[in-house]
């Protein structure tokens, strides 16, 4: 996992990366901090829900409807997880 400035990310970010690898079925995927749904063809409406459910299961959190609809990038995911009390997330 690489941050915007190319720094290695650890902790919760790896777990998010593992989820992306699973949902997009790409074991070599490297999660980019700046990745957006609009840029990734695999990130369709079906996989969007799959990502959300996998994140909720992994971090034991629940997003509301607005949050689910509002997630459009990896950055949004980190922001939502932080709001739900997940620490160990990469800073900016």
């Amino acid at each position, binding site marked *: 996992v690489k941050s915007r400035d190319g720094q*290695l990310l*650890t*902790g919760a970010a*790896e*777990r998010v990366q*593992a*989820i992306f*690898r*699973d*949902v997009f*079925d790409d*074991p070599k995927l490297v999660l980019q901090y700046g990745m957006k749904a609009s840029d990734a063809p695999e990130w369709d*409406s*079906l996989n969007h*829900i*799959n990502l959300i*459910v*996998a994140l909720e*299961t*992994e971090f034991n959190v629940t997003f*509301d*409807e607005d949050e*689910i*609809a509002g997630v459009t990038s990896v950055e949004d995911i980190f922001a939502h997880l932080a709001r739900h009390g997940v620490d160990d997330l990469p800073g900016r």
Partner: protein
Amino acid sequence: MPAATETLLPVVGALLRAATGGLTTAPTKDVRAMIESLGETETAALAFRLMCELSVPVESQLFLLRQIRMTYPGLLERLEASGSPASLLAAREARYLTDGSSDESLETLLSDGAPLDPRVVEAAIEHQRDGHNPALLRRLLAQLRLGAADYPAAQRLARRVSDLSPAGLTALGLPELRVAILGDVTTKFLQPLLQASLLEHGVNGTVQSGDFDHIEVLVLSPESWLRDFRPDVVVLLSSSLAMRPSEAEGWHDLLRQRAELCRLITERFSADTVVTNFELLPEHTGPQGTPAWLAEVNAALRHMLPERSHVFDLGSLVAEVGVDRWFDLRMWGIARQSFGLGAAPLLADRLGRFLRALVEPPVKLIVADLDGTLWGDIAAEVGAEQIILGGNGKGVAYLRLQRYLRDCVSNGFLLAIASKNAPEIAREPFLHHPEMILKLEDLVDFECSFNPKSVVVPHIAKRLSLGLQNVLFLDDSPHERAEMRQQHPEVIVPEWPASGVAGLPALLARSGWLARVRLSEEDRHRTRLYREERFRVETAARFSDVEEFLNDLGLVARLTLIGPENLERVGQLVQKTNQFNLTTRRRTRLELEELIARPGAYARALYLEDRHGAYGLTGAMIAVPPSGETGPLQRLVIDTWVMSCRIMGKTVECAMFADLLRFARDTRAGVIEGVYQQTSRNAAVASLYEELGFTTLGFTTDARSPEEQRFVFNVSSEPARPNRHVKVVE
């Protein structure tokens, strides 16, 4: 999770972080140091398990496992020898993952039926992807346990399953089924899961899902994908959530439309349909309870559906899970997804089991143990009166299991006993315990011996001409279960639930092994039919002397006049009997009516029974004076003589002839004439007339039937084969 596991979590967590932080960045020696700090044996075993449970890429897990094995050489061997089932499983899983996933280690892993970690199953399916070992792949798929996985894990499993090569899947030799899931709710999340679930339950399914609310268009449009897909089954997924308020009021119209849709689907695609019933919603709980329409609509649903349309009981699944866990109303709002995705794996599992039962019920024969399974305690030690059965306390659970099994027998499943006991002791409770629900007549076989059950059960199955894959084996002894799994992996051997026998009926019900989606009249009587035949075979084996056997059978032949009440059945017998059929003249109903109405005609239907049960109408004989001939000492010509092959070899033909002879003498006929007309199938009766003492008159000169051989019997003589074994009654 055991307490020790929780204290270990931070250590394992640190390890994983080191490993996943990038195998390049974390120095291997640091990882090794951390592993050493864990200590050996049980602690390390738990570490193996934990690694599998956390969401970590497989390659990181492998790295860690290898480091642990290098730190503690011989660790896996010691774990396997430790005697703890958890350690054994962990060691086997670790061995499988790190030893290059060989077929042999997978075989070992699957052998005791313990639930494997989903990550290990994933890796194993990936390794079996090319289908190089169909038998092993089939066993692996049977242990997928999709229904027990959480949604993300189930999805990963389903994806690995979808990667399996089509040729490999075909090589499994499973029945194929094309399933379309349509709904007025979202079906696309269920599609991959159902496909995997079908494979787990022994069906090579192809599943397609359709957009919600387009059902009518799909069915009616000549260009729809549904037409090209050629479904065998169409599942119509629905939900009370999707019901509009006006529809709840006027649900009769809704059901009529649905029934019409099912009829159309069956007509257009020649497919079965599966319809979900209407489930309880969260707002239907509380002091006010369920609205009346919900109970009514579900009751009416079953009556209104056409043939080949089946109800999947979604309501009972929601009840099992609980409404609060079943629904995720956010997802209904966002995606018209009518159940929480957490419930999707379980729904896919149950629907897969239901469809499996629709194709063919997986189980035909249940073989149950006695002591500890059908009752508590050991009958040989405490006596039949003292076994734990009924009363208060634990005995109630055994009664409930017996009642469940009795219902299975009523639904056409066969039940047999395999007990390590002396027969008279084992039968005693069935005969004399006042609370026994199962009776001897519910059983198709009763095998008491001290042979291993892995020998006895195949023996029972073979006698019933059933394969071992159709056998469900119930035994409370872990040793017996392990032995059966080891020797016959194809036998279905359920693990005993934690609550013991009390939990068994629910386990069996939810498994779908004993679900019968289609139920025929014959199913209800199957035990009786098999049992009677089985006891006849058994008795035949006991008597070395055929004469003694026949006498012991207690054969009774009732020879009844053929008339309106049995003419139909006699006609069928004449039409379909090939072996014991002297002329193979397929008399029509009209011809039969004419023959039996002729003055001086002998026309009898044979109803046979013996001490084991009734065979029913299994024979007929019609002998008539040639038209125009009357008066004393006339000829009586046997026009039709048939007997079912089920009763051949029991000398019943001697009884039938004796009765004809009696009639001939009473009516002062002079001779009885018989005709044998050879066909490709009736060689068994070629010499019948000669054996009975007829004199051959040679072949007819009639060019139209050159093989017709005619015989004559003088009524004043005695038959060469008199009737000795069959009692004849009117």
